[in-house]
């Protein structure tokens, strides 16, 4: 068994889990944070993406024990209360989701993509960066649109100020 201490969505948690527990399963089953989804068993679909210490990580590729001491943010912690994160809002406005299963991972990955590129994003870059996230419903068209729109919203203001 492994003892964990981590911060999940701003809250300190400490738990004892089976050594082999994946971070994805820990979040879903021990923390009841079921917005993180599991869509494959080969770490390729991206439905499970969360942020660990600010970086997008496929939570099925990581043991919960490896995240001990880390700050973990899941989709549930991305925004608070009534305010949605700009990426969440853009997915809604541009119809970037259908069944919603890939969506939470898509959004977490997209937030990271936008952060890493600091506003410098085009369609080809977004498509290339989404390589690790599979969506079977949308054909990606509206997801790409949503990410670019959120990027413009998040960086438009700062760019204008520069």
């Amino acid at each position, binding site marked *: 068994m492994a003892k964990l201490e981590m911060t999940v969505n701003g809250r300190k948690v400490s738990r004892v889990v089976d050594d082999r527990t994946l971070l994805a399963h820990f979040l879903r089953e021990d923390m009841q944070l079921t917005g993180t989804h599991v869509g494959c*068993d080969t770490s390729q679909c991206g439905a499970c993406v969360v942020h660990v210490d600010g970086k997008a990580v496929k939570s099925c590729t990581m043991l919960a024990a490896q995240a001990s001491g880390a700050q973990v943010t899941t989709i549930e912690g991305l925004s608070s209360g009534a305010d949605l994160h700009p990426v969440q809002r853009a997915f809604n406005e541009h119809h970037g989701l259908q069944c919603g299963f890939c969506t939470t991972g898509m959004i977490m990955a997209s937030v990271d993509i936008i952060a890493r590129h600091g506003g410098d994003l085009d369609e080809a870059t977004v498509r290339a960066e989404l390589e690790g996230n599979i969506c079977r419903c*949308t054909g990606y068209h509206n997801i790409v649109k949503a990410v670019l729109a959120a990027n413009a919203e998040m960086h438009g203001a700062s760019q204008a100020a520069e």
Partner: protein
Amino acid sequence: MGIQGIGASVARKEDRRFITGAGRYTDDMVVPGMMHAVFVRSPHAHATLGKIDSAEAEDMPGVIAVLTGEQLKADEIGNLICGWAISSKDGAPMNMGEWSPLAVGKVRYVGDAVAVVVAETRAQARDAAEAVMVDYDELPVVVDALEALKEGAPQVHDNAPGNLIFDWEIGEKAATEQALAGAAHVTKMQIRNNRLVPNAMEPRAALAKYDRAEDHFTLWTTSQNPHVARLVLSAFYNVAPENKLRVIAPDVGGGFGSKIYIYPEEIVCLWASKRTGVPVKWVAERTESFLTDAHGRDHLTEVEMGFDANNRIVGLKVDTIANLGAYMSLFSSAVPTYLYATLLSGQYVIPAIHANVRTVYTNTAPVDAYRGAGRPEATYLLERMMETAARELGVSPAELRRMNFIREYPYQTPVIMCYDAGDYEASLDAAMKAADWDGFPARRAEAEARGKLRGIGMSCYIEACGIAPSAAVGALGAGVGLWESAEVRVNAVGTVEVMTGSHSHGQGHETTFAQLVSDRLGLPLDQVNIVHGDTDKVQMGMGTYGSRSGAVGMSAIAKALDKVETKAKKIAAHLLEADEGDIVIEDGHCKVAGTDKQVPWFQVALAAYTAHNLPDGMEPGLKEGAFYDPSNFTFPAGCYICEVEVDPETGKTDVVQFVASDDFGNIINPLIVEGQVHGGLAQGIGQALLEDTAYDASGQLLTASYMDYAMPRAADLPSFNVGTTVTPCPSNPLGIKGCGEAGAIGSPPALINAVTDAIGVRDLTMPASPRRVWEALQAKA
């Protein structure tokens, strides 16, 4: 149209829960005392089942039961069935082999469920499943349908000699042969439609809970049609009578057909929950999904199309072999017959058509409906033929199609379908314009200068949606009716709940259905809730598939709304002392037309429930239900144009432009309709360019993970150029045709036509992988 009513691109109401992680899928459900099921599955494609030794597994930590097919049979759980009876042309009924939810006596494909382990945790159940010892005596294997029909092939089911399930035909054989014999030109092709794995991103799952005190079951499951699941589980699998079984399909993460069927796992979880006395949850791992979700397509066809000296089609002869896998899944028999061969007239006047279809057992996963179901196979066939014929005849593919279009309606095809409305030329012209068809030679030349081979291809598809009327499909062998139900409940404060038998697993019904209500009653969307997916809340329904929820599901709502409006108008007329015929409902009020007399909607609703002042003899309340059975299929149609660039060095194909021009009839929410088209296109382009399902000769699935099965990713696809033309559907009150499958139906031939144009070859098997394209180029050189 109002800003939220019919025709408005309203952002979806249901999105909030999904984008915040608050969606509730089956695997998110937790009930007290819940335990976990893991299935022991056959590693062999064909074997006699010997002793199952579970002693060691039963002793492992957390394990509470290991159950097998013998126990299941002892409890009289029924075999899985195919619900659509098709007879061979000699009148013999189809040869349906036995399919026990847990194998008895024999296993027939890799993944066939042999036993189930129930344990406290998933990990414990998985460990114990590894420890169950099963004796298998391997048998010879057959995976290819053509091989399975050969003399001496291994027999999958004893009651299907030669592995033939049925040998069926439609159309006029003699007339077709005569037409081809007299044709000025005959185009012949052999066409394979590759086997696909649907791959909804949410794996299948089931959570079954048995309440001993009430002798009652609850099943949460990943279903596109929970009422059909309940009906079949009760009527055929002997799990429990309908009044003792509640089926809930909560948020469902995509289906594309694969979640229509009732699979062994739901049956076993229900049964195991009663046997063990604990709630039992099973969630598929992705590998299990690849192995056991019903696959799609897998046809091999010989086809001939004849033309007269003026390039008019005179006849079409089709001979198809369809691989149905190891067992007949719930609607498997209908897919290569009534959902396929009845569409073989396409958009064209074809005086004589004959199709023969043989369905075959093999040692592979069962095959059933996958997005489009039969219609993509028909479209692929016709549109590859039209393009190839145009090249052989030396005419423009657009003009060959144009001159053969059906132009008068209703149009009775030689293969059952009667098209009610359409304008194929409008779609063709719109697509050619959007694609800048005339500018293609310049683009080709420009690509050539860069060392790329550029090609253009088109496809003009038609499909049949709604899957109805009930009496007609009943006469063709369907075991169920294909109507839809709805109940509109107006609450005492005027807000509305709609109970629908349609099920949304990505289609956005919570928004589009509410738009209809908003349009009719003039209420804001947030005052309308759509309730679906629970047999305790919605009395009965047929579910969502075949692009039927708009045309059939919403028509049922419209019919129930008619009744609500009639009653509301009576109440309003009484309150306003006006004539019922003068009352109109708009902007949230009942008004006397042409006057300023009005009463707010909520007061009419309140009056219905206080019942203090109702017209004489009127029952209190404002709630109406309706069943809607359509009078015909609907016939969405359109034209797709694809442009590709092939790198001759590597054989890699890039889709550089994709134009879709669809006629879906009237549209409720353009934003959602476009999304449906995008998704369908991605699946169709996936089929044509990337996806393939490969079994080796021993029946092992080689493409059982995302490492090996090429799912389309964002970088594999372009942004799409989609547009619509409209001929309203005359067969339902809303004029809707349906949009869910078109993209997947129309796109594969457009893409292959473009690739073959680019590289200058006639035949190319899907998917057009770099290797296939490169080899085709080398063979040509």
